[in-house]
């Protein structure tokens, strides 16, 4: 995961739950390219035609609440979403995103201010979000979360842990 992301912003409201991000009927699928086709289908079937690789979501409260399905994160990533700026995110979704290397930045002001369709950037090292000359700083990440992101996700991190134990 690179430390600098740039993409156009797509705005969504509060409580965008995992049922609308990836509807249950697709849960038997596992391949990213299959899941990506249905990303946010339950809320906005047109999203998949507008999103381009590298784009950023600006969302409200409790993003990703509901089911623990990691398929939601896989679908967002496969659709091209590279980062999420949220007022708040549900615990399990936040962990899933970190574990799969999809950064979720918590910053209520930025989430409220980012303009639809315009380009924005995220600097993960500085936790800085910028768009059109304005910028914001997101809440810092905990040490454990930073360690997982630095390792490139939970899979490489556990690989390291298992290697160390052997």
């Amino acid at each position, binding site marked *: 995961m690179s430390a600098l992301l740039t993409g156009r912003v797509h705005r969504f409201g509060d*409580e965008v*739950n995992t*049922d*609308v991000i990836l*509807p*249950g*009927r697709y*849960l*038997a*699928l*596992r391949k990213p390219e299959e899941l990506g086709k249905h990303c946010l*289908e*339950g*809320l906005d*079937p047109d999203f998949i035609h507008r999103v381009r690789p590298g784009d950023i979501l600006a969302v409200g*409260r*409790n993003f990703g*609440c*509901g*089911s*623990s*399905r*990691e*398929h939601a*994160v896989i679908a967002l990533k496969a659709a091209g979403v590279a980062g999420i700026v949220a007022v*708040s995110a*549900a*615990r*399990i*979704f936040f*962990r*899933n995103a970190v*574990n*799969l290397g999809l950064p979720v930045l918590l910053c209520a002001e930025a989430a409220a201010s980012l303009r639809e369709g315009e380009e924005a950037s995220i600097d993960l090292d500085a936790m800085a979000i910028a768009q059109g000359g304005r910028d914001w700083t997101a809440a810092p990440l*905990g*040490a*454990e979360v930073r360690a997982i992101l630095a390792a490139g*996700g*939970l*899979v490489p*991190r*556990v*690989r390291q*842990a*298992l*290697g160390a134990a052997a």
Partner: protein
Amino acid sequence: MSGRSITEKILAAHAVEGRAVPGSIVTVRPDVVLLNDVSGPLAFEQFDAMGAERPFDPARIVLVADHFAPAPDVTAAGAIAMTRDFARRHGIAHFYEPGRGGIEHTLLAELGMVGHGSIVFGADSHTCTAGAFNALGIGFGSTDLAGALALGKLWMRVPDSIRVELHGAPGAYVTGKDVILELIRRIGSDGAADAALEFGGPGIAALGMDERMAVANMAVEAGADCCVFEGDAQSLADMQRRGMAPVEAVMPDADAAYRAVIRIDLCALAPMVARPPSPASGVAVGTLRGQRVDQVYVGNCSNGTMTDLRQVAAILRGRQVAPGVRMVVVPATQKIWRQAMAEGLLEVISAAGAAISTPTCGACFGGHMGILAAGETAIATTNRNYRGRMGHPDSQVFLSNAWVAAAAAVAGEICPPDEVMAMEVAA
């Protein structure tokens, strides 16, 4: 220093660090790890990608085919096959599929693996159901649980605790479901974010274990990390019934620190219905009188128990499901299904014109076995009514207890259960 909540005590007893202060990060060793046919296959792939060779302790892993079981199509059959293979490859005896299992959270309660002070890590958000047993059930995604399978532990932030004090006894047709719908209505769908909900007070005695499961099940709909009931004579007897050695309940210190203390008077509660599209939008059933329904669904990990089936049968005995309405009843586990048969409940329910399914998650999450078409409305005893949860994005779901759902089946519209019970019964 202030005293400790139940959550702090249970986490501290399982933490590598030996303590668990709210807000701190601890590494927790669970007693049981639970995965299903949706979260499992992703986890097994990640487990292999981690280079793990064997899971930490096969005897403490429970794998359940419930979401897409019995398999509706080839893709789902493949996911169940992967789950079965993982069990076989690693000598995991606790693998359950149709005919022997049921919905994972209700099934786990039957297995005698979770009691006072236990911790369950589940790759499912409703793992919090274990809170009914004076245990902590904590939900995670698949990659986290792949890590737990490999290492036998996971990091987590110790939640704050919110105390919910129950007082009094509920009136007729008011159940655990109404307690939790009322709580979520009050605090909102993220009102317990980063917190554990702890239920105690004299009123818990009025809730049987099935009803406590219904309460704990929906803690996640309030955004809680987990949920836990105080233990009592009922939870102790329940452990013994399931063949577990009796262990003392974990109780909070009198001076434990809480983020908030919420009081609910059970005697003041009415049967509740949560309107779509949020479990937080509950209102008293009477408010929605006359709301037409196309489908009535009784089942799921919150309300597919014997308690619920007895309520359904009490309403349906001598009555019929209204014309133009279809009713689907799904006992949560095989054991419940068989007991309902032995008690004659299935005869009453099917004679009323309801379909009875084998245990499955099925339509609860819009998977199969009862999906809604565009424009249709359901009332369900499930836990989520998000947009499109049970099918088409333009369908809607009202959430209620089993009394209210069964009453709606007879009336063809939402109606207070006492009014349906007052209707004449066929001889």
